[in-house]
């Protein structure tokens, strides 16, 4: 019974009650993923599944993801260098206290993949469109599962918009 975390194999716990979030934080000493509400309401625990699908680790039992690959905020940096989106959050003041930031960043990476795939959102006017522009309205709607109690939303949207404007070229 194993799971891959940030490219490394890890043992799954014997007790199936352990959430994916607690596996990361308490068992594997990866506290970058944050426990905000622990009930799926805040998005602070967002991680990436199998390279790009954003999920909430608090509402996941670790055993459900046996054999799968999870990327947490710790897995995004490349040999010590910040991920470009992390750098963009610094440059655009995308945080104050920083508690929601790992979830915001993982969520934004997952969101970009959904946009590339043409997944529509609640504010997409034309459901038949396969190319959806990353407008401010689209970004805000698509990031609505990640709350920021400091209210750094303008900086968060700016960081994501600037980063992905370059990444999707």
């Amino acid at each position, binding site marked *: 019974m194993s799971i891959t975390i940030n490219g490394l194999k890890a043992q799954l716990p014997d007790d199936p009650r352990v959430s994916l979030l607690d596996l990361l934080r308490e068992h594997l000493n990866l506290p970058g993923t944050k426990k905000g509400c*622990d009930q*799926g309401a805040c998005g602070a625990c967002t991680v990436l599944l199998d390279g790009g*699908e954003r999920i909430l680790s*608090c*509402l996941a039992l670790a055993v459900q993801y046996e054999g799968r690959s999870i990327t947490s905020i710790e897995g995004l940096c490349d040999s010590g260098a910040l991920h470009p989106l992390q750098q963009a959050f610094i440059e655009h003041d995308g945080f104050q206290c920083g508690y929601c930031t790992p979830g915001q960043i993982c969520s934004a990476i997952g969101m970009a993949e959904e946009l590339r795939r043409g997944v529509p959102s609640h504010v997409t006017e034309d459901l038949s469109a396969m190319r959806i522009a990353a407008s401010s309205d689209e970004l805000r709607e698509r990031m*609505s599962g990640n709350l920021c109690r400091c209210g750094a939303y303008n900086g968060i949207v700016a960081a994501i918009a600037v980063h992905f404007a370059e990444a999707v070229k």
Partner: protein
Amino acid sequence: MTPFTYARAADTAEAIRLGAEPQAKYLGGGTNLVDLLRERLERPTALVDVTGLSSTIEKRPNGGLLIGAGTKNTAVAEHQAVRLRYPVLSRAILAGASAQIRNMATVGGNILQRARCLYFYDDEGSRCNKRAPGQGCDAIDGLNRNHAILGASSACVATHSSDMCVALAALGAVVHLRSARGERTLPLTDLHRLPEQHPEIETMLDPGELITAVELPPLPLAAHSTYRKVRDRASYAFALVSVAAALEVEGGTVKDVRLALGGVAPKPWRAWKAEAALKGQPATAESFRVCAEIEVADARPLGHNAFKVELAVRLIAAVLEELTGEHS
């Protein structure tokens, strides 16, 4: 969480066998069940993970679609045939939860999600007939802004929170079920029960029965369909009132209409009365309002949710006017 075993079912037959254990629960994405386990509102001794079973969307010989119960909500919403032929279903799913939750949640789990009534969750401080049958309901005289105006009872006024199910109700979706006794189907509108005096019994499913798929009928008018949801914030909130509708207008007259409401009842609420009243009528704002008023004529609002009655009427009328505009 109380202790439980976990097993991943390799196929439907194995799932049914494992699910026959008295205190077993089927596990989909876990976005509702894991929370209920943590709150100890669910205390199964065995979890049977059924997410690996059926996650395909297939075209049926009659032109309908068969959606496997393990299909993720995102996968349904982004599916090309759903977007083009049943836009109300894409729109309803996209109006619900967050992207992360839609990536995890399955179709079967969405249907079987439980009430979000705060008194149901308040294990230590409140009475709830759904949690503890016979105890009483503190929502009826409590903070019931989010509660039901249609179909509720003196025992329970909680609403069903799914957006997806409201679209499925409007579309006349059929749910495929399997148990040790064999296979059967139920219209989605017959799957959830009204609370009456037993709100703890929420569906018509037999013990151990598994949802295997949801079938959408071929329904040409569904190409002209949409979903509108009114909530307390612009995104990531449950509905105060929502409307799923499909409309066919010919020569200025309503030839056919499908209408369902969310946020107002203990189950996805198919507006049969409004549909019957509107068919054959002129497609005008006046007829839309009249049919909506007929639907809510039996509404029994609570202390804090009387606004939902007029909101439902206006929302139905607005959505039908929007769909009429698509025809012109």
